[in-house]
């Protein structure tokens, strides 16, 4: 079938609506374009005589594609806004619990390092200032051999 000038006008108009309707949810966009296509088909079928001018009148009465899409924007139900909010919220707790985990691990690592340092330092200090750890060893060694022979 050959495309007439009228068909071309209609195709261009519907393409403009489709383009403007990109910001609508997919289902709404298709529905809008289909509703307008249906309207044009029927209005054309009802013309006594189809002329380019009469097609232009049909399209002019439908109105500017941008304002039709703007009307569709105001006709959205409340739930359309809702999915955005919960979709945003769940990732936050996951993220922050991950972050908390890392913070906890970091703090534990720092505490561990500090404890090790302290332990090493106090051992070091202990060995140089306090002879006690050495003395029992020294006294214990002679004490045992001394008591063993006496027990025998």
């Amino acid at each position, binding site marked *: 079938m050959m495309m007439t000038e009228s068909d071309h006008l209609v195709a261009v108009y519907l393409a403009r*609506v489709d383009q403007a309707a990109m910001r609508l949810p997919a289902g*709404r966009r298709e*529905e*809008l374009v289909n*509703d*307008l296509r*249906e*309207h044009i*088909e*029927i*209005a054309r*079928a*009802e013309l006594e005589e189809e002329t380019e001018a009469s097609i232009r009148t049909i399209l*002019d*009465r*439908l*109105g*500017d*594609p941008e*304002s*039709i899409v*703007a*009307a*569709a924007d*105001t*006709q*959205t*139900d409340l739930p359309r806004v809702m999915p955005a909010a919960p979709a945003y919220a769940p990732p936050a707790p996951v993220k922050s619990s991950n972050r908390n985990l890392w913070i906890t691990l970091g703090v534990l690592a720092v505490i561990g390092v500090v404890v090790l340092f302290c332990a090493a330092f106090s051992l070091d200090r202990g060995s140089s200032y306090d002879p006690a750890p050495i003395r029992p060893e020294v006294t214990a060694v002679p004490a045992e051999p001394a008591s063993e022979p006496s027990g025998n």
Partner: protein
Amino acid sequence: MSDEAALTTALRRGTIEYCVLALLDKRELYGVELVQQLSTGLGMTTSEGTMYPLLSRLRRNGRIATTWREAPAGPPRRYYTLTPDGEAALTHFRTEWVTFRSGVDRILGTEK
């Protein structure tokens, strides 16, 4: 949008959908008829297309329904009909509207 246009848009918002229900309360209409009657009745003959998103929402909300019917000439027509929900909403709006309108008229001094 000019202030004038913004005003009419604001006034129509919230009332046009009840005009749709009221037209369908008289008899079922197919898209082209319904949209032409609305736009002629409300003096907005260059924005018939803006009615389709409204019809789409009313259908989603269950206030109107559609049925296909063969036509004597041309393609089959999709007729819009009023549902029981739509009828109840229209009845409710009629009483609300009378109260609201008389309140505004009293304040504006446009009653009579």
